[in-house]
Each structure stands twice: as C-alpha cells, then as structure tokens.
C-alpha cells in the first residue's frame, strides 16, 4: 500500500544489487555447507575459476558476450512494453544466417565475410522476431505466447535442417562441416598479441567487442534518438503514445526487429568465434539467461554488461567448482545460479524497504530523488 521507496541513485544502482548478490552467495554457502563442503573454499574456487587467470577471464567474458547480446535483445523489447521470451529462438535462427554465410563464403577474406555474417545474423534473427511482432501488432496475439512457440518452431526447424540438409555427410552428429578458417572470428588473444599484449588462447573473440558496440548502439538508439523516444513512450504508456501521434503497432514491429537482430548476433560469438560450425542447440539457453540479465541490469546497457559478466562468471566459475569439488555437481551450480536470479531479480525489493528506511533517517534533501534526465530510466 505504501508508495515505492526511493533510494539515492548510487544505492539504487550499486548498493542494492551488491546486497542482493551477497545474500544470494550467503544462501548458496549455506547449501554448500549442507552437502559437506567448505563454503569459503567453494567461493574461492568459483571466484578463481571466473577471474583467477587469463584463461578463466577469457571464458567468463566469452560467456558474457552471449548474454550481452540476448540481454540487450530482451531490454529493447522491454522498453517497448514487450516481453520477448523468444531470444533463444531468434539467436538460433540468427546463428543459422551467420553460419550459412560462413559456410558459403568462407573462401572470401575475413573482412568481407564479417559484415555479411553480421548482416545475415541480424536479418535472420529479426525475421524470426518479425512474425510474432506482426501477430501482436496486427492481430493482438500475445507476444509472450507467440515467442515461446517460435522457440519451439526454431528448434524443430534447426533440427530438421541439421539432420537432413546441412549435416556433414557420413557422420553421426547433426552438425555442419567446419567453416573455412577465413570465417573464424579472430580470438582476442590474437588481436591483443598483435599490439604486443600477451594473452592466453581462449574462446574470447572479436565478437565481445561487437557486443560492446551493440550495447553502445542500443544506448544511443533508445536515449538519444527520436525513434528511441517514441519506443519508450509507447512502452511506458501506449495511450500517451497515441495521443502524441506515435503508432504503437509500428513501435512493436520496430522494437522486435531490433530485438531479434540483437539476439541473432549470438552466432557471431558462439559459431564464428568458438564452434566454427553450426551445431544443435548452440544458444544453450542464453536467450533465457538474457531475460535474467536484462532484469538484473535494469534494462540499461551498462547494467546489462555488468549482469552479463556476472552470469558469465557464474557459468565459468560454476563449471570450475563442479570440476574441482566432486560433491558439487552441475545441478548444484544451477541452484546457485537460480538463487542469484531469485534474489537479484525476482526478489530484488526485499532489501529495498529496510535500506530506504535507513536512508530516510539520514538524508532529507529532495536531491536524493532519483534523477531522470534523458539518461537511462530505471
């Protein structure tokens, strides 16, 4: 019943997420204690596994790259008032586009393949998002339902293509032949090596920089263009959008196309950067993690980057944890990741009340009001 508690901006964006994260780790620690391992050692293993060496950092950021793409995809749709559950399918089909370019044009020089691969990934992803968007805009079919359905359709389509059409002849595994080396995304270790910085070989590759560029692009589009303004108005208040002469159906289409294009870029990292072939289920749930990443990152590019790194660290650190602690199997790692999502996403307001009371006692100045100037709105 009480009005939403307000916090100073630094507490809203820094302190609160930190407290939530610590609470999640404490809870995870308690569970690890229950299964008879030392929580402290486990935390150390996870942190070490995620950030302890160049190799682990490389893997962490490699995973984070996927999550940045899908997190941005979910956030763009969210700002338009749409809940895109379909990033998984859009990433899958987008990767098909990227992969086909790499398979067919792999003989071309890399700098010719790259823009086409980016374009194809974005186009395929956008096309996959377009149908649910169109159904929502023109027919009112709920986008949550349709995007979920399209995940299944994407999966069925890709399985059929890989099993029957694209499979490398004479093998069991439903995957294509390997791309020509020209179509490999250069690893970051290669790029850093060229400018004289030694770095261990990891799957971290140029796509990470592309993801950062995408984040910057999303920020400019949403908060510095007329198009983004219209998108956010339509997302926040469709009636006000109509009043202002903005057409919400058109915004729905535009936002979903961008959302799909972002999700569709996942193949740049996963296929061109690491697997070098199209294989079954390569998005591996990144589309769904993207929902949590966007939620935790407050749907803002900087927040999404940080949340993506956190989830990358959870995946990489978690895999090290289960590698080195025999009692912690992969399901335990999923439990820990789930706790982080639960406390940082779904239950993020648990500590908001006490915290805001703490601040209300200390600061009375109206300056503590959350500012909202053209910049990202939380």
């Amino acid at each position: 019943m009480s009005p939403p508690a307000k916090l100073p901006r630094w507490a809203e964006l820094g302190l609160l997420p930190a407290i939530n994260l610590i609470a999640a780790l404490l809870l995870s620690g308690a569970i690890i204690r229950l299964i008879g391992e030392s929580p402290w050692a486990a935390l150390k293993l996870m942190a070490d596994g995620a950030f302890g060496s160049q190799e682990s950092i490389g893997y962490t950021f490699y995973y984070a790259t996927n999550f940045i793409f899908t997190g941005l995809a979910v956030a763009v749709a969210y700002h338009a008032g749409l809940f895109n559950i379909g990033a998984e399918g859009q990433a899958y089909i987008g990767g098909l586009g990227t992969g086909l370019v790499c398979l067919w044009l792999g003989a071309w020089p890399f700098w010719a393949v790259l823009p086409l691969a980016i374009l194809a990934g974005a186009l395929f992803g956008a096309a996959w998002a377009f149908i649910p968007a169109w159904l929502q805009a023109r027919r009112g079919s709920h986008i949550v339902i349709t995007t979920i359905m399209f995940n299944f359709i994407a999966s069925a389509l890709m399985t059929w293509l890989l099993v029957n059409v694209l499979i490398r002849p004479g093998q069991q595994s439903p995957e294509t032949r390997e791309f020509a080396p020209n179509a490999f995304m250069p690893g970051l270790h290669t790029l850093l090596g060229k400018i004289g910085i030694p770095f261990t070989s990891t799957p971290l590759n140029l796509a990470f920089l592309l993801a950062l560029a995408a984040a910057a692009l999303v920020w400019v589009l949403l908060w510095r263009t007329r198009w983004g303004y219209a998108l956010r108005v339509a997302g926040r208040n469709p009636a006000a959008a109509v009043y202002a002469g903005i057409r919400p159906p058109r915004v729905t289409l535009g936002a979903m196309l961008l959302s799909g294009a972002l999700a569709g870029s996942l193949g740049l990292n996963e296929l061109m950067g690491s697997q070098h072939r199209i294989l079954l289920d390569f998005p591996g749930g990144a589309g769904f993690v993207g929902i949590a990443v966007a939620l935790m990152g407050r749907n803002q590019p900087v927040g999404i980057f940080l949340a993506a790194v956190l989830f990358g660290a959870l995946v990489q650190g978690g895999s090290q944890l289960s590698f080195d602690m025999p009692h912690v199997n992969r399901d335990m790692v999923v439990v820990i990741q789930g706790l982080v999502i639960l406390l940082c996403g779904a239950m993020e307001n648990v500590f908001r009340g006490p915290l805001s009371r703490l601040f209300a006692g200390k600061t009375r100045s109206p300056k503590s009001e959350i500012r909202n100037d053209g910049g990202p709105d939380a």
Partner: protein
Amino acid sequence: MVEEINSLPPALELRGIDKRFGAVHANRDLSFAVAAGTVHGVIGENGAGKSTLMNIIYGFHRADAGEIRVHGKPVEIHSPQDAIAAGIGMVHQHFMLVENFTVLENIVLGVEGGPRLAGGLASARAGLEQLARDYGLDVPLDTVVSELPVGLQQRVEILKALHRGADLLILDEPTAVLTPQEADQLFKMLGRLRAQGKTVILVTHKLREIMAVTDRVTVMRQGAVVAEVATRATSSRDLAEKMVGRAVLLQVEKGPAQPGATLLTVRDLEVTDRLGVPRVKGVSFTLRAGEIVGLAGVAGNGQSELLEALAGIRAPSRGEIVLGGRDLVREGLDPRARRHLGLAHVPEDRLRMGVVTGFSAQDNAILGYHDLPAYQRGGLLNRAAILGGCERKMAAYDVRPPNPHLRIAAFSGGNQQKLVLAREIDSDPRVLLVGQPTRGVDIGAIEFIHQKLVALRDAGKALLLVSVELDEILGLADRILVMNAGEIVGELARAEATEEKIGLMMAGVKGEGRA
C-alpha cells in the same frame, strides 16, 4: 477545543498523529476530534495529507507517532480488520467492488459467516433490508454491480460498511464520480445517517460540499491542521484562504469575448466505440478565434469521445472536422499531423494520456512535439534544446520545482498540468482542445490555469473546454454547448446560462438552442 453540547466523548479523537514517507512529512502532529452524531468535513488541497490520515485511521498505514481514540478509548489499528472491529467504515474514492458479483455477494464478501454461502446470504439479506428501511438506502440486492450506475455503486459501498457494523463512516472524495443530482442525493443520505446517530467524516477538496453538509470542518495544509471551525461560522472564501494560505480568486476575471473568424468547423460528426455503439451522434458546431466554448455534460455522455475524435485519437465513423480549409477526417490525419496544423490538445486524463509517468519533466515536455526540428535533427535528439525548452516552459508557467530532470510523478497534479498546458501552447496553436483542465489540481494552480486560458482567448485562440465541473464552465466559457447521450442538446450564450438551465439540459431536456 471542544465545545460540545453533549458530554459524550468524541466518536473519534486523534492525538499527535505523525507520519513520514522517506523525505516526505505527510502528517505533522495532527490532533482533532470528531463529535459523535455529526458530519465532519476534512478539507485541503491535493497533497495536504488527507488521504494519508484516512489511511492511517483505516489501518492501511501505521502512524510513526500519535494515538487514536474511539469513543474515548485508545485503540490500536494495524489493519482494516482492526478498524472495522472498532466500528470504522470507509468508502474509497475508487470503489472496492467485485464488478461481476451481485450487490448482495459484494456486501457479504469477507463476512460470509461460514463456509456455506446460502445461510450467510439469507441472513445478510434480512439485515440489509432492515438497513435499507432505516436509512433509505434502496439498492437492488440481486443486480450485478457492473450494471449499476456509479451513484448506486457508491451506495453499495456505504451499505457494505454499515453491514459490517460501522458507526463512523469515512467518505473519501465521494462526489468525484457523481452528477450534481447524484451528489445531492448522497448529501441527503448523509443527513439521514446523522439523524440515526452515525458519525460521518467527509474528505473533499470541494468547498461547496463542505458548506452544504458538514457541521464542523478541519482544514489541512502541508500535512498539518491549520484550522478547525464550525461550518456555520465560516465561508467558502475564508476556507479557501486557509487551505491555500493566501487570498485566492474564486471567480475568474475576464472581459467580454471578441469572437473573430471561424477556425474549426465540425459537421455531423459520429463516433462509435469498439463495440459499434454510437457515442457521438451527428454533432455539429464551430469554434471561433477569441472565444472559449464550454462543453458541459454529465461524465460519459460522449464528451470524451468527441474530444478524442477532434484530436485524432479516435477515428470518427462519419462527418467532417475542418481546420484551415482541410478536412482532418477525410485526410485521416493523426494527432501529430493535427498538431502541425495548429490543433493542440490538453487531454482529460493527464496521467493516462497526457504524461508518461516514468519519464522526467523534460522528456514529458516534448511529448507529441518530439519530431519538431527544434528538438531533433535527422532523428538524433538535441538534448540541450530539449532541456532549454523545458526550462523555458517551466519558467513561463511557474512550474515548481523548476527542475527538468525530476520525474514527472514527483510533481503535484497542478504542476504537472501546468507543464502539459505549457507544452501544448508552446507551439503557438490556433485551436486548443482542453479536457478537465483542473481535475486533481490544487486551488492555487486552478487560479493560474484559468487565468492562462482566458489570456489565450484574448490572444485570439479558439478554445474548446470540456469539463464536468459546472462552476468551471460557467466561470470560463463564452458560449456553452450541452451534451446528453452523444448529442448536443442545447447551446447557450454565457449571459443566458444558469446552473438550472444547464442542469436540465444535462439531464436530457432539449433547450431552445439549435440541435
């Protein structure tokens, strides 16, 4: 403080109630008493802390400090259940009814008296019929609530409270949704309740109501009690000054209108809703430069649909809207295109349509004008120009606090409305459509907004004013159109208009004007 004739303890006594929400001090050391068997008014502007106080009394909020006494005994109220147990009932501004339940089902909801519904319903029916006889509260018990007019829905809320044994009834802005006639009926009912020994607290910002029905009145300003007086010992002007803290003009001062050329012509306009039901039926009228045309009517008689059709939000099914020689309907122009032709629109429901609550003031100050070359070039927003433009509008319309970065939701209703008005006028439109310009706006801002509207008229603009506040129409309009059931049933020049004449037309009696 108390000079009661009877020696009974007060029905409700508040001692030192204090409440903060973060940095906002909503109630400051409030103390007053409500004598049993009286109608007690609580008046104050929006944001004066009235609703917070009522929510504390009814157990939705807890006071940080202070004591509540009922009939002399201190009570602890932690929840609405505690309040009900103490004999306190509340009728909210927005009804808390289950629309697809019958009246009877709504009333027994929460007090069913056992897992089997039938017995509870039967005994409740008997009790309610008794209540209805005692207080003259006739309501068809077996009708589904959504089929009742709002006046009767409110009656259901009152019955609900009485059925739960309320001895003290709190009504929060009860007339906001009623026609003048329905409001009169409500006041008669309150009189009967008082005669039967019930105590009523009437929370409102309308001076007329306080003067009409209350015995005593408590005036609140900025979270504190600033006066408590017997109603017969005060006047509207006196109360208004106490509420605002300075002298106010209740009547707008304006010279005679000097209508010029016809700017907007509406011919045979028909608007149907989504179900195909006609809401506006063949309406024709004109707007001329330098006049304010008031559109009066009970809410829900087609004014909103007409306004939205004019603004381009709804597509009419028939008719013409001609502005500057162009038929807006045939060309199918959207609101943005209409703005470019000089048709600005202050919407009726500010929060639903006029602003985006999550946005800052400066982002709201370009809503609908975000594609003007002044604010963007090649699709890229010019943040400096947006900020500067907002600062300029805030200064010109005295928007407080003048901080363009602040979220619009942090402004009071009056300041939000001033910013919306500033935005719509900034592009120098020829015609301004204004819906409910002072809804949810405090008295100080009402005064300011009314003056601005008159100034616009004097600057040669054509204004269409849609309002359900008859006082506002009578105060501002130079010509008055009255709508009933989607038709314009009469047109009156201001000089010949009286409240009675308009009231009759609003009820559907055709006037001697055109139509």
